[in-house]
């Protein structure tokens, strides 16, 4: 059997790499084509990098050097080559090195994008890790309890709160809790004070506790609803009746048979959500001013810095594809039927 597992893993890995190439190509074309359709010319694009005061000649020269006149396929090829072997940019004031993996080079800050992204990944990672553990534990626990005591006061109260939770935008609950807990009561530190875990775990947690709870509240609401629906469906299945009939304790029936069936779809969504979050918890990071990937993307957009935006989008896509891959592989380990397909 291990042979089939390895074949499956290799096949999935190849598919994931293929998916990333397609996603990067589409991202690249959209970001290079949409401004053109909207009326921007290579000169106006180059203009951003040399400043408004530059002469027409400099602008043209810069556009030429950056390859903005090249067809889209050539531009994508150069960019993809840069990811693998690095690239050199000559924008007039000297040659700039962008070592591999060169995800782009910001001509506004005159910095390669990748090292800046690397600096921000720990912030987003910390945020996503803490929040996802919280919401998975609370969401699933509340969902299971609600399903088992269906119609009880607990179920009704939990589902009402959950419905309210899925109807609230994070930037609203985040702002309210920030205004109340940080500024009014002073219990937590206001946003923008990220401390790496390795420096000081207490300060790290203190700066992140509010974003964690706010984020986890919204996601818990969604997961509680999903788990409850899944549990209700699974507990009506024949194999649950069989499990009960053969005299298993109710606890074992719920945990080993009911929960196992109900959790598989939840895991898929969990993988997707964590992947999305790692790719940039844009709203949370913006609300709490956390210097993560999402904030980087927003800053890039405000400055109209295309290479930055492209870089973040790609890193985000990598996270999503990776998260999906891990979920698929876990499935294959847990459930042999998946491998056969």
């Amino acid at each position, binding site marked *: 059997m291990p042979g089939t597992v390895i074949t499956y893993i290799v096949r999935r890995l190849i598919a994931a790499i293929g998916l990333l190439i397609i996603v990067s190509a589409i991202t690249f074309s959209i970001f290079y084509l949409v401004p053109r359709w909207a009326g921007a010319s290579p000169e106006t694009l180059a203009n951003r990098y040399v400043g408004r005061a530059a002469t027409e000649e400099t602008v043209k020269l810069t556009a030429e050097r950056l390859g903005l006149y090249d067809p889209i396929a050539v531009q994508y090829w150069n960019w993809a080559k840069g990811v693998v072997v690095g690239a050199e940019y000559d924008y007039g004031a000297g040659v700039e090195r962008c070592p591999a993996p060169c995800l782009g080079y910001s001509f506004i800050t005159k910095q390669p994008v990748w090292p800046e992204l690397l600096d921000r990944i720990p912030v987003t990672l910390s945020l996503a890790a803490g929040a996802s553990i919280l919401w998975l534990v609370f969401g699933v626990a509340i969902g299971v309890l609600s399903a088992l005591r269906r119609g009880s006061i607990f179920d009704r109260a939990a589902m009402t709160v959950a419905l309210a939770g899925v*109807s609230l*935008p994070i930037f609203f609950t985040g702002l309210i809790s920030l205004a109340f807990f940080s500024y009014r009561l002073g219990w937590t530190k206001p946003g923008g004070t990220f401390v790496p875990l390795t420096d000081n775990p207490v300060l790290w947690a203190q700066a992140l506790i509010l974003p964690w709870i706010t984020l986890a509240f919204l996601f818990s609401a969604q997961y509680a609803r999903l788990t409850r629906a899944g549990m209700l469906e699974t507990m009506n299945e024949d194999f649950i009746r069989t499990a009960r009939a053969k005299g298993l304790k109710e606890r074992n029936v719920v945990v080993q048979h009911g929960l196992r069936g109900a959790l598989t779809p939840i895991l898929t969504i969990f993988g997707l959500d964590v992947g999305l979050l790692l*790719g940039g918890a844009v709203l949370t990071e913006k609300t709490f001013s956390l210097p993560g990937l999402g904030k980087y*993307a927003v800053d890039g*957009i405000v400055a109209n810095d295309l290479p930055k*935006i492209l870089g973040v*989008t790609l890193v985000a896509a990598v996270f999503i594809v990776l998260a999906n891959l891990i979920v698929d592989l876990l499935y294959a380990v847990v459930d042999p039927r998946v491998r056969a397909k």
Partner: protein
Amino acid sequence: MTAPLEVEPGAATADPEAVLKGMGKIEGRSLGQIAWMRLKRDKVAIGGFVIIVLLILMAIFANLIIKLIGHPPNQFNQNLIDTVGGTLAPTGKFGGMSWEHPFGVEPVNGRDIMSRVIYGSRISLLIAFFATLLSVAIGTTLGIVAGFFGGWVDAFISRLMDIFLAFPLLVFAIALAGVVPDDAFGLKGDSLRIVLLIFIIGFFNWPYIGRIVRGQTISLREREFVDAARSLGARRPYILFTELLPNLIAPILVYATLLIPTNILFEAALSFLGVGVRAPTATWGGMLSDAVTFYTMPHFMLWPGLAIFITVLAFNLFGDGLRDALDPRSR
């Protein structure tokens, strides 16, 4: 659980002799009638529906209502701002709430918050509705085609959905909304932003509906009534539009209703991040974004936040009720 289908208490005891005894005639009910009866009994869903209707009316007649209030959403009321203290907060208690300005006024420039919230409903609902319509149109078409034809068509469309789902949606949307200049595609100003947002939001949400429609189509394709139609010589378009589509309307309707609140949150998020409809046009997300710097004045963030919450909640309540009514197993 299965909800009882009858309303009259007398009819609840199903008695085969009922007709003979003359207790009343037994009528057949269509699935739509049964669903409508279930929905009517769901007070919460009806409550949600009433709020939705009121919100739509508010959005349509926004200009009229604002005229009645007498404070245009972009009118500055500098006389209501406390310029002495240096905070530029509104004069008076609770952010300048009064009969004249029931929700108070904004700090710094004193714009009437109530008018702005009312006007914001317009942008929010308009974008959410049309974006949903676009997603449903693309998702239904591709989903039905994939499910019905199978083979390489299905494989291609399914991979396409995988690719779309692998896109970091929000990052991508803000980036895309950010790179388009203010004057493009022959449009400019608010109308350009609105059309752009409809396309961005609608274009990236279709795979969710597409997957559901594809799954339903596959399960319907092998059913007897489709076989019957085929053996009677029905052509593919006939089977697609007359046999399959009516059976898909229920799930499409439910997911469309539940997609609208997601899209409202999406639009608010884009406006909050500053890539939505541009200032000074009032949007709920934009108002919240303005409120960030004035965290000491919570009223300023409260009203637009509540507006988003109530709208999204109403759609969720109605959507949940609709799903329960159309598919009682899902409760």
